[in-house]
C-alpha cells in the first residue's frame, strides 16, 4: 500500500531529477478559506530508493542525509542566512518539504543557461539560450550584477561565520527571489552536501569550488567573482586573513589536499 507521503508525491508535479533525488512542486496543506498562507507551494525533495545499495544501508543513509540537510538549513536560519524554510520532514520516506522560492537561479540570470547539466529531464521548450540584451532577465529584479555579487559574498560569509560549509556552492544553487513586498533577496539552496566545520581549509575550499563554478559556467567572470570575495571579506572581518591566504594555496593545488609524502 502506498504510504501517505507517496500519495503526496503522486499528487505533485515532478520538476527535476538527479542521481540522488527527485524534486517535486506540490501543495502540503489543502488550500483553505484562510488567506494568510500566500506561499502555499512547497518543494518536495525525495531521496528515492537506490537499488544498488543494500536496503538496510539505503534506509539509514537516506535518513541521515535528510536529517543532515534539515539541520544545516535550521542552523543557517538561526545564523540569519537566507535559505528556504523547512515545511515538512519525513525521514523514513526520505522526503524533505521546503518553502517554495519563486525566483530564478543566478546561473540563469547571468546567462549561463536555465538548468544545470545534472538536470537532464528539463522539458526543452526554451532550448535556444541566446543572450539577447533586450530581454535581460535581471531587469524585473531591479538589481545590478554587482549588487548580486555583493549579496552572494555576504550570504556565504554569514554561513561560514556559523561554521556551516555548503559543500556545493555553484551559481545554480543560489536564487534571486523577489517577494511581493520588500526587497530582492538572494537565497542559498541545496544543503544536501552541507556539513559543519570550523576549519579554514574547508571554508577556503568552499570558496574555491564557487570560483571554479563561476569560471566554467560564466565566461569572463573574474571581475564578478572578485566582487563576491570583496564583500565576503567585509562580512567575514578578522577571519578573512587566514581564509584568503589558504584560498591562494588551494588555487595552486586544487580542491583535494595532496596526500603524497
Amino acid at each position: 500500500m502506498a504510504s501517505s507521503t507517496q500519495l503526496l508525491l503522486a499528487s505533485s508535479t515532478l520538476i527535476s531529477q538527479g542521481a540522488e533525488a527527485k524534486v517535486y512542486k506540490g501543495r502540503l496543506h489543502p488550500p483553505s478559506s484562510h488567506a494568510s498562507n500566500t506561499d502555499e507551494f512547497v518543494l518536495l525533495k525525495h531521496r528515492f530508493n537506490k537499488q544498488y545499495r543494500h536496503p538496510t544501508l539505503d534506509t539509514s543513509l537516506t535518513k541521515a542525509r535528510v536529517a543532515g540537510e534539515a539541520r544545516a538549513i535550521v542552523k543557517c536560519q538561526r545564523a540569519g542566512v537566507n535559505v528556504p524554510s523547512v515545511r515538512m520532514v519525513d525521514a523514513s520516506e526520505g522526503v524533505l518539504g521546503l518553502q517554495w522560492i519563486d525566483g530564478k537561479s543566478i546561473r540563469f540570470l547571468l546567462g549561463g543557461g536555465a538548468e544545470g547539466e545534472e538536470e537532464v529531464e528539463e522539458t526543452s521548450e526554451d532550448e535556444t539560450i541566446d543572450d539577447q540584451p533586450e530581454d535581460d532577465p535581471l531587469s524585473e529584479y531591479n538589481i545590478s550584477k554587482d549588487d548580486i555579487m555583493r549579496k552572494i559574498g555576504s550570504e556565504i560569509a554569514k554561513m561560514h561565520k556559523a561554521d556551516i560549509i555548503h559543500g556545493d556552492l555553484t551559481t545554480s544553487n543560489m536564487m534571486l527571489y523577489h517577494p511581493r513586498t520588500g526587497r530582492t533577496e538572494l537565497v542559498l539552496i541545496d544543503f544536501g552536501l552541507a556539513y559543519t566545520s570550523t576549519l579554514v581549509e574547508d571554508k577556503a575550499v568552499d570558496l574555491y569550488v564557487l570560483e571554479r563554478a563561476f569560471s566554467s559556467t560564466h565566461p569572463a567572470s573574474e571581475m564578478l567573482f572578485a566582487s563576491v570575495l570583496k564583500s565576503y571579506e567585509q562580512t567575514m572581518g578578522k577571519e578573512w586573513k587566514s581564509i584568503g591566504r589558504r584560498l591562494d594555496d588551494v588555487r595552486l593545488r586544487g580542491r583535494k589536499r595532496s596526500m603524497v609524502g
Partner: protein
Amino acid sequence: MQSFTYSHFPEHLSTVHVALFSNVSNTAQLKQRLVSAATMPGPEGEQERAAVNFAFIDARLICSFLHLQTAIYQAILADVQGALRTRTVHSEVLWALSPSTNITDAIRRYGISETTTSLILVRIGSPNDTTVEKQMTDVVHGSISSLDLLQDIADWSLIRKYHKIPAPAPKDQHGEETLKKTRELVVSLVACKGVLA
C-alpha cells in the same frame, strides 16, 4: 472554526478542525477537567475523554497559522507511521510544537494553563464528524475568533525564549522583516523536530 482535509492521509486522521477562542473564562476548571478525565475509570471515563478529545493549545505561543499547521501535519504523519512519541495524536501536536523532547514540558508550556485567555482547539479525525464545533463550544467558555488574529496574540518574547532565539536589536524589534524571518525559523524548527538533536 475552520476545517480542512488532507486527501493523502487515511480517512480517520484526514480532517483537521481548528478554532481559536478568545476571552476564555474557564481555563482553570478546564485544566482540572482534563487531568481528571485522563484517569477516570469505566464508561464515564470514556465519555469524558471523548468530550475533551482535543489538542488544547495556548495561542500566545503560536506565531502563524502555518506554524500550527506544520505541527499538526507532523503529528498526523507520526500517527500514520505508527511512530507517535506520545499517547494520542492530539498530545503529539503539543509535543511537535515544543522544542524539548520532554512530554510533560511540552504540555505544561504549550498546553492550557491558568493564565491562558486565548485558546486553540484542534481535533484530528474523520471528515464525517459534523458536530465538532458544538463539541468545542460545549467545553470552552469563550468567543470563537478568526484565526487571522493568531499573529496579534503571539507573545514574541516567550516564543523566542522557548526556542532560544536571541532577541533582535531594539531598533528592528518589530520590523516586519525580522518577524518574518523568525516566523520561518519557528516553522522550520517544528518541521525538523523529529530529526533535530
